[in-house]
């Protein structure tokens, strides 16, 4: 039965799908790196999950060849040798989805990363054991439940309840359902009878194959922005709820900090944060920081709405390739409960490189940049998992995908960036120059774009900012003009520019410093809600108007930065908090007063 001689982990979810087909065995005949060949004594399916050897290393069948199978192992294969047993699971590589995900950290195959007797990750980690939740049934015997319906609620001690979903493949008449009370998430909570009369028990937790997108009833066209709390994004380059965005940038330009700022400040219900081939300290940082931070919308700890999936750069590369699918599957699971999910992937380049490495190992013909020819379609498939949709349970949920890209030498013409660009709607290009000047977020206003922006004007209007679209255009035009004028100034000198153009440069400075710059570490400014953002847009625009009128009235542009209100204007983001919006009115009034004095000819003090 069990040639490894190890007690089987009954909760191992990849066995849940093992319906009908007996589990097969095989024996290693050759092994090199993370790939092995084994002689099979039963039927294996392509992409079937397997366990290898005494430590039950997780692997996936990647090739069938006569009576031999080729297996890619997701863990360190040291010590394996011919003769070691390989055990089939009868199901494709799957991850367990249930109420135990929120607030925890997992590896790329969704096995919990918890403190243990050694600080190191050893091969052969186990799946999450069953965890007990307070279960509340939301269905009664006799009820007809469609596949994917909500049949109950589960809550961890002191935490909000989460919906319990039937698997998307299971529906029918409720035969019995567990009463309210403590229940393990692996125990049968509800028994259903389907149309054919077959009965099936489902638990609060179910397995789902990672490479298969979870089904929805119908997709919707995104029409509302995901509010990120970052001005440069929400105002200039918004992403839709259910949309997709990419953040390319060389090392140290601010991808991770921006993703983390979004994870903290965006108005999603659930954050799935994937650290894919990045630093262990960054993952530890999320774990240390998020429990301390408060979700501005619910007042609860941010960690409670977060799932962290970590395959750090020193963890096995083969699992890196799978980790992105694990993350997408988890995100879809929460979407299916009618929640709005933001999936942050840092970095998709490491995933693509893992794909390249795995492909190279199988001797596939390398294409552009050494990547396999199917790179573009894999990137497309991943971003397509972003959607806003009517879910099987009858609610509306969404997954917004935001992926970082780490282009070699920061060159955006490389394959991963250029293919991603074809599939995302929002492109947030990070700029080395800005990053080096410590101007954050270092988003380049001319290289970045947001295709859907115009569609969000109604949303902003209904949230009290009817000038959003107009001001956005105005800001973008000004930034464009700045680039042009700076090129010119480089040739003729700034002093030689006409007053109007010198003014435009000053205005662009103000727009950058006062509005676009936003430190992720400033206690006041790390997040900017729509109301404060609207007020700051208004004050900035007011300054542009006043300055223009002043220069038209003959005021020399260089006198403008000497106004008393100039520094407070540049610093308004850091000085004026979310609940002091009236101070923006005062600032606006001060600007008006001082400009009036300037134009009125009263020579300002000290001039």
């Amino acid at each position: 039965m069990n040639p490894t001689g190890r007690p089987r982990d009954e909760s191992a979810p990849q066995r849940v799908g093992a319906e009908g087909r007996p589990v097969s065995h095989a024996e290693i005949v050759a092994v090199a790196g993370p790939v092995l060949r084994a002689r099979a004594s039963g039927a294996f399916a392509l992409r079937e999950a397997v366990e290898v050897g005494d430590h039950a290393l997780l692997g996936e069948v990647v090739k069938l060849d006569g009576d031999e199978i080729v297996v890619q192992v997701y863990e360190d294969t040291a010590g394996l040798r011919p003769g070691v047993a390989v055990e089939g699971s009868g199901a494709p590589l799957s991850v367990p989805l249930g109420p135990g995900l929120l607030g925890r950290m997992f590896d790329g195959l969704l096995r919990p990363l918890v403190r243990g007797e050694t600080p190191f990750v050893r091969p052969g980690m186990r799946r999450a054991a069953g965890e007990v939740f307070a279960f509340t049934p939301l269905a009664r015997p006799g009820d007809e439940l469609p596949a994917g319906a909500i049949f109950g609620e589960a809550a961890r001690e002191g935490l909000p309840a989460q919906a319990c979903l039937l698997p998307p493949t299971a529906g029918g008449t409720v035969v019995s359902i567990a009463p309210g009370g403590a229940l393990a998430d692996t125990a049968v909570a509800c028994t259903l009878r389907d149309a054919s009369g077959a009965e099936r028990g489902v638990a609060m937790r179910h397995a789902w194959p990672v490479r298969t997108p979870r089904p929805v009833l119908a997709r919707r066209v995104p029409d509302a922005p995901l509010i990120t709390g970052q001005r440069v994004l929400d105002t200039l380059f918004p992403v839709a709820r259910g949309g997709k965005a990419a953040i390319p940038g060389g090392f140290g330009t601010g991808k991770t900090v921006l993703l983390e700022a979004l994870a903290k400040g965006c108005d999603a219900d659930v954050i799935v944060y994937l650290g894919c081939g990045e630093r262990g300290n960054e993952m530890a940082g999320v774990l240390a920081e998020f429990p301390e931070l408060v979700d501005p919308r619910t007042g609860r700890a941010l960690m409670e709405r977060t799932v962290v999936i970590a395959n750090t750069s020193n963890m096995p590369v083969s699992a890196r390739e799978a980790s992105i699918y694990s993350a997408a599957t988890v995100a879809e699971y929460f979407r299916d409960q009618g929640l709005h999910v933001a999936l942050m992937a840092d970095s998709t380049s490491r995933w693509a490189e893992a794909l390249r490495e795995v492909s190279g190992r199988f001797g596939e013909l390398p294409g552009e940049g050494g990547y396999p020819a199917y790179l573009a379609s894999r990137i497309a498939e991943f971003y397509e998992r972003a959607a806003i949709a009517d879910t099987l349970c009858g609610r509306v949920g969404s997954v917004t995908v935001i992926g970082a890209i780490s282009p070699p030498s920061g060159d955006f013409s490389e394959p991963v960036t250029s293919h991603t660009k074809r599939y995302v709607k929002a492109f947030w290009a990070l700029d080395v120059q800005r990053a080096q000047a410590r101007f954050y977020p270092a988003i380049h206003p001319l290289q970045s774009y947001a295709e859907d922006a115009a569609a969000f004007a109604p949303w902003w209007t209904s949230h009290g900012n009817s000038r959003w679209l107009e001001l956005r255009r105005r800001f973008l035009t000004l930034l464009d003009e700045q680039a042009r004028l700076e090129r010119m100034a480089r040739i003729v000198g700034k002093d030689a520019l006409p007053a109007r153009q010198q003014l435009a440069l000053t205005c662009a400075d103000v727009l950058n410093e006062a509005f676009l710059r936003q430190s992720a570490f400033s206690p006041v400014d790390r997040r900017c809600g729509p109301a404060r953002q609207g007020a700051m847009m208004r004050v900035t625009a007011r300054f542009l108007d006043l300055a223009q009128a002043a220069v038209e009235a003959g005021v020399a542009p260089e006198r403008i930065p000497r106004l008393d209100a100039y520094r407070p204007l540049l610093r308004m983001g850091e000085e004026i908090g979310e609940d002091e919006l009236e101070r923006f009115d005062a600032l606006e009034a001060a600007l008006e007063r001082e400009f009036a004095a300037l134009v009125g000819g009263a020579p300002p003090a000290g001039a």
Partner: protein
Amino acid sequence: MLVTVEHAAARLEGPLMFLRRTVDAGLGDAVEVHSPSGPPRLGRVAALDTKHMTIEVLESTAGLDLGRSVVRFFGEPLAFGLSGGVLGRVFNGVGEPVDGGPPIAAAQRHAVDGLPLNPVERANPRDFIETGVTAIDLLNSLVRGQKLPLFSAGGLPHDRLAVAIATHARLRDAEPGAFAIVFAGIGVPWESAEYFRASLARSGALARTALFLNLASDSSTQRLLTPRFALTAAEYLAYVEGKHVLAILTDMTNYCEALREVSSSKGEVPSRKGFPGAMYSDLATLYERAGIVHGHPGSLTQLPILTMPADDIGHPIPDLTGYITEGQIVLSRELDRRGVDPPIDVLPSLSRLMKDGVGGRFTHADHPALASQLYAAYARAVQARVLASVVGADGLAETDRRYLAFGDAFEGTLVRQEEPRTLEESMAAGWRLLRDLPRAELARLSDAQIAAHLSEA
């Protein structure tokens, strides 16, 4: 388990030796290949099938033959026997003492490849280390457990800077703690290794240093093992002996060159500039061995040094390193030429962990704002310089002219230093520079900060 196999070698090709499978070895098990033509060579089992074994010889295979080669199997992956006694000792690139002293009486054996640290076990590095170098302490602070490389280039004084950091580094108002240095010389010239040894000896640090030397004249394939032996010792000292370890790895460019050489001799498909596609992951298995672990008193801070080929920061070696490490300190040939010592190019330099190690709890409440303002102003100064180079300083606006002067002072008096400075001295120098800029330009400082530090005294 020690098994010796004779007469099993069937083929030798580059670094690979193909044997008939006559022992039950596991993948990755360490071996030693003995041959009458030289000292034993380390290797590992790289592939296995029912009939054959492939041994990857981790040192030069020159002089090996099929008939007389004897392979010893260790029955475990390559490991290093360690004890606190490694301090004060000198080893070759594979952990064998070369100082004439006795062998290390091993208290524990650790696999040299190490294991990935579980991220949940990592504690956040936050203890500010004062190095005495203003461009680091004030602008790109180093903290315990960080990996912060020096991006240098041939002929620049990176060795001197590394020694200065290693010998000066101290924690502010905290217990000094047990401090240790692990130095890995990877393909370095003898003079360079000797410079480190002599400097550490002069400062009295040699007794708490373990030196691992793979000199330029040593086997290049062995270079892949040198940082692994060194970091295994460093991890042992940090997590078992509870010491605060500073690991200096130099020169990582030689390491990467060796990686490229071995990869191509194995016939792997090359990636950028002929370096293997897996170089990112390979480097990560070294750099990620820096850190601090919950419940362990020690820490492992890494200061790798690399020389940028053709001074190009976009070259795969600095590029991939920058993507893994927690910042970088970049040295500039231009500053060096102008006599700015240390020639640290501040704009491309970065310490990502700085935000966790500075501010009121660690250094000074206004330290982050000061650093940010200095950066913003220096970036403007560099821009103004570009403008001035075309239209001349006279074509500049008044403000830009002041930035021009600021830039020169920044390099000449802040970056450049003759003596180590305390953080207070560095900060004072920073505030002094900002006095000469118009207040309206100082948008990164609050009114209170301006009043406290910039009001004319």
